[in-house]
């Protein structure tokens, strides 16, 4: 893509009422003030006729991209277009886990960068996102799996990322509910990334939206993009239900529906849409203070601060845009839960939901320029979108502002498929439902 000329004068930054700094003293003062001093966290902007950058999709990655464009790269003339309200898409539909325990060096560096950004995020945004580094524990159940996990842990440690082997006894201490001696899948041990954990996902969307709005970004809710305008091979703007909006750069950050938006620009992506379900049980007293993954299936569980156990599994396994999920995977997740933690058998599932995800052909995301000048894609997140929000936003902002890939995301370009540089973390081949 072509770099945006730096000499062009920018329109004046939008000035709007600030929501003010959040602090203990502010809380105390508002307590004496009958809470009348609070204002909206972000402004409900109406779209102008043109922007330097239009970001389609007001989820985690879209908002983070806008925030970093304004605060790191000095581009304030930005609009985020969201078809519904902020926070109701995939950013509010995941199991809130953050970690960087990957195997491929490029992926480790990228997700570790994200984890480091999570660590300073709340102070930077002045917003409580409840970042909780409670640890991520991956259990293994066979000797072959132990060797595989050891290899991954060594790879991580070579790159300076924390990860430690833990014994069966330590697993029992960390997860008192675990059934170590399950007849079919006994737990032999695990690997713990102590800096992994969970983040309150809604607060991530709200925090970035507030930060971006204060930095001059227009956040336009209920604005659905129905077309992408082109002049030859250059993108010139988007058609929406609130009129035509011109833009020098259009960024698609609509994981789950990337194929559909890209089709508006005449592009076909290496992506299939699949549904991933998540479940929350009724709230109980604290029983689990780490994130645990089950190695003999695809299952992960953590306990939320409200007490509910948040669990998830694999994708349902066939192309779908239905945000609901079907029962066979529900049964599999429940079976995994009670195999690993039999004490959960009497719990009731309070809520179940599905999120539609971009499953890419190699299981790694796409942050890339496209054959069309001025069109940038952030998508293909598979299972990893939530934890990648800070790094995805920063590297996408870099790509838009500088016109070239961020060094930590250069391997996530679209051209890798034709060039034979796929980043297939799982070694599953071009079968999205297997990643």
């Amino acid at each position, binding site marked *: 893509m072509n770099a945006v000329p730096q000499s062009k004068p920018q329109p004046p930054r939008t000035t709007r009422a600030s929501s003010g700094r959040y602090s203990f003293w502010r809380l105390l003062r508002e307590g004496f003030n009958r809470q009348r001093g609070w204002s909206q966290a972000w402004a409900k902007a109406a779209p102008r006729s043109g922007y330097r950058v239009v970001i389609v999709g007001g989820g985690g990655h879209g908002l983070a991209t806008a925030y970093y464009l304004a605060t790191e790269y000095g581009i304030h003339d930005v609009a985020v277009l969201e078809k519904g309200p902020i926070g109701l898409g995939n950013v509010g539909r995941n199991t809130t886990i953050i970690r960087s325990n990957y195997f491929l060096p490029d992926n480790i560096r990228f997700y570790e960068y994200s984890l480091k950004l999570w660590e300073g995020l709340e102070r930077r945004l002045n917003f409580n996102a409840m970042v909780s580094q409670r640890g991520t524990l991956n259990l293994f159940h066979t000797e072959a799996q132990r060797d595989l996990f050891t290899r991954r842990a060594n790879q991580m440690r070579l790159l300076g990322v924390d990860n430690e082997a833990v014994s069966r006894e330590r697993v029992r201490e960390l997860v008192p509910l675990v059934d170590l001696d399950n007849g079919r899948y006994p737990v032999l041990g695990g690997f713990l990334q102590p800096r992994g954990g969970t983040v309150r996902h809604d607060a991530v969307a709200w925090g970035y939206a507030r930060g971006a709005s204060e930095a001059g970004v227009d956040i336009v809710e209920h604005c659905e993009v129905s077309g992408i305008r082109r002049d030859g091979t250059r993108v010139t703007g988007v058609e929406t239900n609130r009129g035509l909006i011109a833009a020098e750069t259009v960024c698609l950050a609509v994981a789950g*529906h990337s*194929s*559909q938006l890209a*089709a508006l620009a005449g592009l*076909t*992506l*290496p*992506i*299939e*849409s699949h549904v991933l379900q998540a479940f929350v049980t009724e709230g109980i007293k604290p029983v689990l203070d780490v994130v645990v993954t089950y190695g003999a299936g695809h299952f992960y569980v953590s306990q939320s601060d409200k007490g509910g156990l948040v669990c998830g599994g694999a994708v349902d*396994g*066939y*192309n*779908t*845009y*239905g945000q609901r999920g*079907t*029962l*066979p995977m529900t049964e599999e997740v429940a079976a995994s839960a009670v195999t690993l933690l039999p004490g959960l058998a009497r719990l009731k599932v309070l809520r179940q939901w599905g999120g539609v995800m971009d499953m890419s*052909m190699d299981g790694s995301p796409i942050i890339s320029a496209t054959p069309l000048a001025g069109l940038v894609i952030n998508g293909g997140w598979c299972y990893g979108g939530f934890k990648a929000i800070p790094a995805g936003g920063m590297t996408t902002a870099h790509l838009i502002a500088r016109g070239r890939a961020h060094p930590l995301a250069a391997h996530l370009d679209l051209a890798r*498929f*034709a060039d034979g540089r796929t980043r297939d973390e799982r070694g599953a081949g*071009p*079968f*999205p*439902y297997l990643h």
Partner: protein
Amino acid sequence: MLRIPCPYCGVRDETEFRYRGDATEARPPGGAGLGAFTAYVYERRNPRGWHVEWWLHVAGCRRLLKVVRHTDSHEIRWVGAPQDPPPLPGDAAP
């Protein structure tokens, strides 16, 4: 739960089948070039609507079936043998 009407075994649960992806991708001729093969291996139209796809009846007759299914409602319109042309062109709704 999808209920897939297998032409050989009758209506069966989805758990008897293994999904094998988009059935509209045809292998290009040998000399078609890198672009055509990249598209064949990696690029998918991924429609929201009618989708022609492969399902392997693993726990039944073990035959490969071609199925026309809607990717939003999950309704199954047609099931046939691999060589049968589906009655719906691409993802066009009837």
